[in-house]
């Protein structure tokens, strides 16, 4: 393994080009994927994750000439799905998002997409400390925690109010763990109820700045948890249609190797060996890869490079994909099950390679109501560390994956005793899988820790015309965070382009 691979950089820029496909990325790439691209654009977007897609679409609807280059054969990044024999469709990151998605989808995509967003009916917690079902609305969740933990309702409300106001405070160095301890001293069970779902949602731990928790928790703790009816494939298909109408030139299988910088400014990108000129470049690639690999250290001030290198990546994930044989059914358990057999809650246990904690997402036929033969699938997710998985040789890797699958199915039998006999497909993904398909450094599922946001936002101060949007800084991760960050960055780019057209910024 090269040093780059050990660090989790995975930029296939040399050697034989292959399509990253369902056969493990071994389909040869035939045609030149960027043959039809024009020579110059106002905006070139590197990467078609939710932030890149949204940024591209917003720029195109403002009248700019936009080109989007995605290295994978499919668009969506982590917002993706795959099909398997037996009629199975597995969603990777469609577990739940906050209500804010409705507004963002309506505003930056379409009413039709927004109208397909539906609330999850039920969320369950089950672990040795407590067990209850909730809709995760503010009202219902408060009732449940007040009952389960015999808490004072006014105190819980004051905790929410404190969190809601945090947006306006400065980051004073308090960690989420310290804040939870201050509000609920010695109550590991209460900390678990408040922290566990957020760890699953964005990989954050008790050791992050409390402000990241405040913002994300407040987003969720309002009207419940939502999902996209129709599945991730329908969402991405509709987005692509809208982008075609907005006039975005989209190319998949297009690996950007380099951001071109001339006289200190962005000049374009090199993609599959070809140079495309651009007045601005929006990178949706991982922020560390954007600076250190795509643009290159030599184009930044040394302090900025130091700052970038010091940015910690978020954790990664493991998933187990469980397909129920066509014709078999499973009863309605819940939509989302946060379950654990660990007696106590720690952030370390959640990320451990052999964690006893996982989230099951149950996909019933209602997930894809447009399909006649929509079946049942179950996806189990847990947090994971790149370092635990990265160094394994192929034999150990297969063994660990199989052990993960076995632990997961055994855990599931607690809730559906006869499930094993109904399963006809089992498959696992690890941090290595996420790294391979999206080139997220170290397979980071949620970008970076808090400090990454500053680097992302200051990119254009270092290289005018170069911007970043994508999961970063914990608060800008997840479907809602990355969509909104795509818009925020697009606004900055439009400001720059508008200014340089009238000669202000040039």
């Amino acid at each position, binding site marked *: 393994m090269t040093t780059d691979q050990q660090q989790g950089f995975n930029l296939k820029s040399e050697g034989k080009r292959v399509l990253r496909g369902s056969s493990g990325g071994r389909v040869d790439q035939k045609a030149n994927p960027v043959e039809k691209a024009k020579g110059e654009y106002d905006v070139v977007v590197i990467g078609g994750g939710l932030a890149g897609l949204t940024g591209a679409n917003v720029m195109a609807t403002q009248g700019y000439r936009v080109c989007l280059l995605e290295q994978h054969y499919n668009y969506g990044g982590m917002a993706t799905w795959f099909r398997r024999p037996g009629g199975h469709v597995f969603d990777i990151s469609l577990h739940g998002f906050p209500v804010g998605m409705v*507004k963002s989808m309506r505003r930056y995509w379409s009413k039709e997409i927004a109208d397909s967003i539906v609330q999850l009916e039920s969320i369950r917690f089950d672990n040795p400390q407590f067990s209850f079902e909730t809709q995760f609305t503010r009202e219902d969740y408060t009732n449940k925690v007040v009952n389960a933990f015999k808490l004072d309702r006014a105190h819980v409300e004051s905790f929410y109010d404190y969190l809601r106001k945090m947006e306006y405070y400065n980051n004073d160095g308090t960690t989420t763990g310290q804040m939870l301890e201050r509000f609920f001293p010695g109550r590991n069970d209460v900390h678990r109820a408040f922290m566990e779902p957020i760890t699953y949602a964005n990989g954050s731990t008790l050791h992050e700045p409390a402000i990241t928790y405040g913002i994300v928790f407040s987003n969720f703790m309002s009207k419940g948890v939502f999902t996209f009816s129709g599945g991730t494939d329908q969402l991405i298909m509709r987005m692509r249609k809208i982008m075609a109408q907005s006039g975005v030139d989209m190319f998949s299988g297009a690996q950007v190797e380099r951001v071109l910088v001339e006289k200190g400014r962005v000049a374009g990108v090199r993609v599959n060996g070809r140079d495309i000129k651009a007045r601005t470049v929006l990178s949706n690639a991982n922020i560390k890869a954007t600076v250190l690999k795509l643009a290159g250290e030599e184009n930044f001030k040394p302090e900025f490079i130091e700052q970038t290198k010091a940015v910690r990546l978020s954790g990664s994930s493991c998933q187990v994909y469980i397909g129920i044989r066509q014709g078999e059914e499973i009863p309605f358990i819940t939509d989302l099950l946060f379950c654990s057999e660990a007696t106590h809650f720690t952030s370390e246990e959640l990320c451990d390679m052999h964690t006893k904690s996982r989230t099951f997402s149950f996909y019933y036929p209602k997930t894809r109501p447009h399909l006649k033969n929509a079946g049942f699938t179950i996806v189990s997710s847990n947090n994971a560390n790149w370092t635990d998985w990265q160094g394994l040789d192929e034999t150990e890797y297969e063994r660990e994956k199989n052990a993960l699958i076995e632990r997961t199915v055994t855990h599931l039998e607690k809730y559906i005793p006869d499930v094993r006999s109904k399963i006809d497909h089992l498959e696992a993904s690890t941090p290595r899988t996420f790294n391979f398909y999206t080139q997220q450094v170290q397979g980071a599922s949620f970008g970076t820790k808090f400090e990454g946001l500053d680097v992302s936002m200051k990119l254009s101060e270092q290289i005018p015309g170069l911007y970043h949007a994508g999961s970063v800084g914990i608060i800008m991760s997840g479907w809602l965070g990355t969509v909104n960050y795509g818009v925020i960055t*697009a*606004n900055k780019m439009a400001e720059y382009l508008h*200014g340089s057209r009238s000669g202000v910024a040039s």
Partner: protein
Amino acid sequence: MTDEHIKQAIIGIIADIAPDEDTGSIDPAVRLRDQMDLDSMDFLDIVMELRKRYGVQVPDTDYQHLASLDSCVAYLRDKMAGKQLVS
């Protein structure tokens, strides 16, 4: 553009980005946030629409000037001078 037109321009934008809000009864002296369910993304949309419709730039350090209709008018009076109201 007259002050009244500037107000109408802002109200027109809000009506488009927040169709559920009642824009008929906005008190120009009171912060928009205190009368309507507007968050920071909504203000970003106002900024983007001002650029798109009127070619007006509002750098993020100036967002505070968009707090109320009255403060919008005061801030945008020079920038919007000579522009036509877009409906």
